[in-house]
């Protein structure tokens, strides 16, 4: 847990390499690397330009608009923002406990989102690297290449994702920009026809998710030298956990562990998150760096997301996913696994759990109920937290007596992983780039490390196909000595 390679001692004498993926609206990511004449790496930084302006934008708007409006934050997992905001507003409208129908509809929506997001990430974005190798032929290292070489895998990826989107559509009203969750509950239950339609496919979805876990487990365990060490760094980790420490993506209390798995805090009501977490601003990045207050800036940063969640929980409530969790924990050998590439394995365990939960919910008649909304004593402040596909997501609002939002603070999953992603790429740069001529294959190693965390920027730039990339080597006078691009 050090800041090595964050800031070079004499940057003015070094060459600068920038990996600058052009992105769409969600965020813009860029890696800069400073090299000396012998190509030795002196500084590596991941910059993500976050859409912070949003917090200002929402001020002065009526609170009931927020869950719909926040979906504009992110085109990749709008449902997570929709639900985190709705949970914060449940607190504002005094809805202490939602009706069974409302809670289960929201859970169904969220697990549908988890399924579609994890399927997209694994099959569409990462399987080319994982199946062909990080510096394999770039012309084949894409989803089209996967479809040619492994047509069945590619097809299942598409169908898993489509099923998740269908779950979102029937719960939120639309695949994107839905309105299903409202402060205090939901605006619709499931119809029998909608339920029956989903029931037709859910059993293959569970089976294909099981197969996906097998696939990634095989890829991982066949090459432990690479998978257990690529980009590795040790860190604390955090997530919410449900009752009895179960894996829970929708609701629970905050739990954090140190790099050895020892509990740092547990059973923390997330309404009090800001007594435990502080966000640090650093001059070179727009994205803040959160850390645990009790440990301090230097050692208090942490990781979130699948690798954190699967190791933070005590068990998983569904049988197939629990079996896979145990396999993973056994493989890790009794202490937490920190290898970034293990995110892929745990992400597939989570996808399997999401599929199993959806199956259970579809057999639950509460989803067909008609009791949708509750209200109670109006409050002026509320926090909503959810485990989004990429990790813990915080939404915090204050609302005045006229019902307008006066303050919003969001800590998005990718921000929670900010320091962790920086550590991973520094490790990779030191190990693979140090002393070498920069090539596309080597740069892809950096991207592979970033992509393991599934930050929004990777999806945003990848969803259209290949990540457009420009790399420039600049000498100390600012002249371009060499440039490399692919688009």
């Amino acid at each position, binding site marked *: 847990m050090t800041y090595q390679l964050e800031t070079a001692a004499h940057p003015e004498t070094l060459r600068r390499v920038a990996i600058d993926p052009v992105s769409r609206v969600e965020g813009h990511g860029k890696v800069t690397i400073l090299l000396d004449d012998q190509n030795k790496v002196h500084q590596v930084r991941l910059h993500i330009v976050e859409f912070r302006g949003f917090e200002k934008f929402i001020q*002065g*708007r*009526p609170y*009931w*608009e927020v*869950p*719909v*409006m926040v*979906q*504009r934050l992110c085109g990749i997992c709008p449902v997570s923002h929709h639900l985190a905001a709705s949970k914060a507003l449940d607190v504002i*409208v005094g809805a202490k406990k939602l009706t069974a129908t409302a809670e289960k509809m929201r859970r169904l929506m969220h697990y549908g989102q988890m399924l579609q997001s994890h399927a997209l990430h694994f099959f569409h974005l990462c399987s080319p690297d994982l199946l062909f190798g990080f510096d394999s032929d770039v012309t084949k290292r894409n989803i089209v290449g996967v479809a040619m070489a492994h047509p069945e895998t590619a097809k299942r990826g598409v169908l898993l994702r489509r099923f998740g989107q269908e779950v979102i559509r029937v719960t*939120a*009203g*639309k695949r994107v*920009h*839905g*309105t*299903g969750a*409202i*402060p205090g509950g939901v*605006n*619709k239950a499931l119809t029998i026809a909608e339920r029956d339609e989903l029931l037709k496919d859910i059993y293959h979805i569970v089976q294909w998710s099981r197969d996906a876990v097998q696939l990634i487990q095989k890829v991982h365990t066949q090459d432990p030298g690479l998978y257990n060490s690529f980009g590795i760094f040790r860190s604390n980790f955090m997530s919410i956990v449900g009752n009895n420490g179960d894996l829970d993506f929708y609701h629970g209390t905050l739990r954090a562990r140190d790099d050895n798995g020892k509990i740092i805090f547990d059973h923390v009501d997330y309404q009090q998150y800001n007594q435990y977490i502080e966000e640090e601003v650093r001059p070179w990045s727009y994205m803040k760096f959160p850390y645990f207050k009790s440990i301090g800036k230097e050692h208090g940063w942490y990781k979130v997301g699948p690798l954190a969640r699967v190791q933070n929980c005590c068990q998983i409530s569904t049988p197939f996913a629990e079996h896979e969790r145990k396999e993973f924990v056994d493989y890790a050998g009794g202490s937490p696994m920190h290898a970034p590439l293990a995110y892929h394995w745990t992400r597939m365990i989570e996808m399997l759990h999401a599929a199993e939960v959806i199956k259970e919910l579809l057999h639950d008649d509460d989803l067909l109920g008609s009791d949708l*909304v509750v209200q109670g004593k109006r409050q002026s402040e509320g926090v909503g937290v959810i485990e989004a596909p990429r990790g813990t997501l915080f939404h915090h609002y204050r609302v005045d007596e*006229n*019902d*307008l939002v006066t303050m919003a603070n969001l800590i998005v999953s990718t921000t929670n992983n900010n320091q962790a992603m920086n550590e991973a790429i520094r490790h990779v740069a030191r190990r693979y780039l140090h002393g070498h001529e920069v090539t596309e294959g080597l740069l892809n190693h950096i991207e592979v490390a970033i992509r393991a965390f599934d930050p929004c920027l990777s999806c945003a730039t990848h969803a259209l196909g290949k990540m457009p990339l420009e790399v420039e080597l600049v000498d100390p006078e600012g002249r371009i000595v060499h440039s490399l691009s692919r688009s």
Partner: protein
Amino acid sequence: MSHTFTLDGKVVPFVDGQTIIQAASAAGVFIPHLCYHPEFKPHGSCKLCTVKVNGRHTASCTMRAAPGMVVESETEEINAERRALTQMLFVEGNHFCPSCEKSGNCQLQATAYHLGMMSAHYDHFFPNRAVDASHPDFLLDFNRCILCSLCVRASRDVDGKNVFALSGRGIKTHLIVNAKSGQLADTDFTLDDKAAQVCPVGVILKKRQGFAVPIGERKYDKAPISETAESTEGR
């Protein structure tokens, strides 16, 4: 006395004193409109209802029908003009349908769909108008006002209260609240006012109700505006 005129070649009956749009809707023919409402005196300001009568443009909500008139409405030329007017309304205000609670129940949005509007076409003004949230039951979001004056007419003519007024001229025209403070809380506006129900877009909103109706069950999800009850009363 009953007479007839032709509307896009169809014979439409009318009685003395009826406007073209009144006769058309009684005959089940839809003419796009925004500031017209059958319960109020016409205002003739939005010009969406423009038709050609004997070859000349005129607003069908203010023009009285006359025997033997030849009226054109559903032509490519007129619909292109209506589309341009609608696009101008979109860029003058802030109309972000995906996060607007009136979406699916909004006459402006439904009219844009009806006219096949694909984009705003003009540069957005992005005005910055503060909302008025002072009233305990209502929110006014002026960002979406299309100045149809329906609330002005409803409050003055039906509620007898004069809560709203249009102020300024030309492009500076804007809706105001008739109170010293300019705040809705300082008027006698209440839930059962007619003016609380007439806004065709998302300006006058009942608080804490937004998004309670799911997508698929909102007014224009069920039928396009040309086929809703108001426009097909005569069919």
